[in-house]
Structures are given as C-alpha cells and as structure tokens.
C-alpha cells in the first residue's frame, strides 16, 4: 500500500477553518463542525490506519476525558466534544490543539463521558 498513489490524484488541502470572533456570541460551532465534516475524510492520514491499537485509543480517551473535566471550557454535558472545543476557541480560551486533532479522528466518542448516564 503506497501512499504516493493517493497523493498523485488526491489533492490534500490544508485545513482552512476560519474562525470569526463575534462579540455577541453568535453560534459558529455549527459552521465549524460542518467544515470539519467535509474535510475530515481527507485528514485521516494513512499512518492512523496502521496504528489503530487499543493503547492509542485508550490514550486518546484519557486525553479527551481530561478535556471534558477541565472546567475552564465550561460544562461538557449536552453538547458534542467538537462543539465544546469550537465554543472554547471562539471565546478565546485557547483549548489544546492536540485535543482537536484527536477529535477529528472518527474513532473517538463524540459526546462527553457522562452523556446518557446522568
């Protein structure tokens, strides 16, 4: 399986999510998640497919759980993790970028750890 074949005909675009910071708090999470859902298939690189071991998903979950519990970014129940990340970055709270990349990988759970249990 050679990745060069893919890149020869599949132009991989750079992620271009534009973030507008409206003072009035206009919802942009929907716009961001829509852009993301369009670009996500392009961004799942081939290296991920090779490394989909249980340890890595467990690590990812741990990292995301930390993100859920972090109170700086607000409550985590009731919205998906991506939406919460987008909201945090729209408010200028600078959420960690590694969480974002983890969230874009489709194997992670979209809601916070308490969703459906509380």
């Amino acid at each position: 399986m050679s990745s060069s074949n893919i890149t020869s005909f599949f132009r991989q675009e750079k992620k271009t999510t534009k973030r507008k910071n409206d003072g009035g708090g206009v919802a942009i999470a929907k716009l961001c998640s829509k852009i993301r859902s369009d670009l996500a298939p392009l961004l799942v690189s081939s290296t991920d497919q090779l490394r989909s071991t249980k340890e890595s998903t467990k690590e990812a979950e741990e990292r995301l759980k930390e993100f859920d519990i972090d109170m700086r970014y607000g409550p985590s129940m009731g919205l998906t993790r991506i939406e919460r990340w987008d909201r945090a970055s729209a408010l200028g709270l600078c959420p960690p970028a590694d969480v974002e990349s983890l969230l874009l990988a489709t194997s992670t759970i979209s809601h916070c750890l308490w969703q459906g249990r509380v």
Partner: protein
Amino acid sequence: MADSEMGEATLERKLAVYRNLDERFVIREEKYKGQQFSHIYFMRLHHMRSQLQSLIPNWKPHLPVNTVLGLEEGKECIIVGTLYKHMKLKPSILDEYSKERSAIPLVKPHNFMSTDDHLILEDESGRVKLAGPMLAPSAFVTGIVIAVHGKETSEGDFFVEDFLEAGLAPQVDRPLDSREDKFVAFVSGLSVGTNAFNPLQFQLLVDHVTGHLGDENEQRISSKIVRLVIAGNSMHISHGFFSGQTVAPKDHAKLTEPIRELDIFLTQLVAALPVDIMPGCNDPANYSLPQQPLHRCLFAGASAYNTFVSCTNPHHFELDNVQFVGTSGQNIDDLYKYSDAKDKIEFMERTLRWRHLAPTAPNTLGCYPYVDKDPFLIESCPHVYFVGNQEKYETRLLQGPDKQLVRLISIPRFCETGVAVMVHKQTPLSLSLKFLPPVSLFLLFYLCSLTLGTWNAMRSVSPQICKCDCGYPMGTALGSSMHTRLCSYFTGDILPLPISAFFFYLGRLFSPDCCNF
C-alpha cells in the same frame, strides 16, 4: 373639522429610518438536544467576567483576583462570580415530594423574600457563602455577575467589604441632529378579549394616532408620531381553552374572536403608520424568553401591510440611530417577585447596571437553553429602555458615569389605565396620553388641550377663547372647538355651566398662566 381642512395643505406623517435588531433573539438555527441550563450560565459568567476584569484595575488595582477554590483564610482578595440567592420561600417542585407535609399556604405570596435569604457566590471552581452587611440580599437576585472584595472567615464564609457591579454599558452617541420633532408611541396590555377591554378607549387611541381626531394642532402632533410599539398582552384567550380538550365547533368563534378584533384595530393602525407588535405573557406565543414573533397568520388583515412588523420579546430596534430596547414586562415582574425596590423603575435601573435584561432567567423565568450565547446581555446601553404591562406610568432619566443617558419608561396596562406613552425621539422626553372611558371623555379632551395649552404657553402662543357664548377661555383651538361641541350637545343651560366651570378651574389648577383673563 373636515371643512376647515379644505384648502389647507395636508399634513404628512414624519418618517424615520428603522432598523430591527431582533436577530439575536430569534430562534432559528438552535436545535434542542437535551442540554441543560449550565451553558447559558457559563456564557454569562465568561462574558461578564471579562467585562468586570477590565473594570477592576480602576476600582481596586492592588488586590489579587482569585477563584473561589483559591481562597485563603484571612487574605484579602477579589472574587468574581455569579450570585445565587438562597430563598426558603421560593416555591420548589421538590416540595411536592418532601416527606414533611408542612402546611402549604393557600394564598401564594406575590413576593418570596424572607429575612433568612442569603447570597452565595459561585464560579466554575466552587461556591462560597457571602456574609457581611454590605450586600443586602433584598436588592439582589440569582443570576447576576459581580465582583466582591473581602476575605474568607474562619467559618468558611466570605466576608464582603465592597462589591462592584458592571455598571451601565458604554453607549453609542445619540445623534445630535435635527430640529424635527419625532415621537414614538408605546402602548401595552390591550387585552382584547377580556372584560376589561373597552373598544371605545382603544378606538380613541387608534383615531388619535392615525390623525382622525382633533383639530389641526392635534393632527400636527399625531403626524409627528413615527412609530407605534405594542409592548405585549394585546389579546387574551380564555383559559378554559387551555385544558387540552378539543374545542367544540360552537366555541371556535370564541377562540378566534379576540384575535380578529385585534386584527381589525391593527389594520387601521398599520394603514397609517408603522407598528411593531411584541408578544407578552398572555399572547399566543411561546412561554419562555425570548418569545418569538407572533405569527403573521394571526393577523390576516394587518400582515398584508409592510408597515406591520411582528417582533420578539425582548425587542431591540433603532430609529434614526436612537437605540430602543424593551420587554413586555416578564423580566421586571420576576425581579419584583424575588427582590425589593422602591419602584419598578429602580428594577429597570438595576438590570441596566447588571448589564443583563433578565438576570433571573433561567432560574425562575423561563428561557431557552442556549449553548453558546446569552442573548440577554446588554452590550451597549440603549437610549430608551421600556417595559410594558406595569401598574402605572413612570419614567426617569438615568445618567451614567460615562455620559450615558437613558430614558426609562414603564408602560402601564392600557385596559386598566387607558394610558399610552409618547416618547420624543431626540430629547429623551416622554409624556403620557390618557384615553378614558366616556364619562371622562370630556376630561380627556380637556387634558389634551391643557397640555397643548401649556406647550403653546411655553412657546408664547396666545390662548384661545371659547367660541360659544359662555365666554370661558380655553387652552387652545382644540380645547375651544371641543368645548363648543360639548356646549352644543346640551340643550339646557344648567349643565354646561357647572361642567365648563369645573374644567375652567381644573385648568387653572394645572396651568395657571394658561387660562388667564
């Protein structure tokens, strides 16, 4: 009256540039996914905290700002958080399930305050009880964000030495312009469909505003009204229909009658001037704030005109760059239930100082569970702030530390008081127009003429003499023409004299210079 107009120029109604700014209150894209209200509180705290943090350096720059969890005993600091007022009399759904069946009072008190109320400050990290005489719980409600200065005591409470509210938001400069007088008329609580509604009263208002009433001076004033805002509770549908049972065909008419009646009046209004109609707590709109605009299908006649605008509650609009913000009264009524002030205008002042239109939402006031915004935050101070469906007409001019100037208006219920309010767009002047039932009809006209009389007196126009034989001087041509008409209605000599005398002396009471002879 029509005869006198022939051969004279027709009066044109003044126009004003209108911009509807209700977009943030309209629920369009939001989808309810089962979220709770914690998000709206988070957004409120985040937004208000950043504003307070920019004000703290001017207030007490030498003190550190901590989180609640970072409090140390005895160390003086500032904490910023949301207030929660613990009230033991506040009705709670859990009371139904509590094991101790204490006697529930049959009469629900209108105000749930008690002397045991105490305040708690909360931020993301924790909450702490506030102690000390500085913060009187009766002046505060749950949901406002403030900064407090003090220190933690040995009992774990936070002893408050001083507190800081955000204060009035910065205001866009009022446009300096024009010698043109323009008025905006406000009315609320029409309650079409109840027994309290008097169609003659409302028809009088409609006629006055559309310019079908009064002589030329009166019509000139009406032509300066550029907009009418109906601030909620325009109709009232009998509560018998809310039981959830199917409405029998014979009752269909009763269900739609109030709406149709209102539509007839509205069609007359919108044909003459732009009208904004807001929903109130009794209108067929959703219950929780922000109430969405009343649907066009309810107003078959009026919605055909482009001067008809159905607005949200709260309503924010701009007329010739003057900012108007107002609600149909639910926010202030809720504050009245959970806190104390000397009048409703003081509640309105407080909401401006807290920079939030409805701080008790979602605690005791229904509100949509927004996830990523709190639309009730006041980003810029309005020039006119109005609240509908109150007991009486009150108004005040509020001045802020940064040269902000706000006209606060409490609009009374029209069905009870017959009072509408006119606000001068430029100078923040407001006056009330009282429309009374037939017995006091004459008094109404006379009062109108008196106000005009004083107006004219201020502009040194000479008062007019009644054209009838009784010879009593009247305030204006309106007053005199009305008086003539009144005199002509009575056949005998006995009645006019006492009535005229009454009006005359009443006139002397209100404006002594006016009726001098």
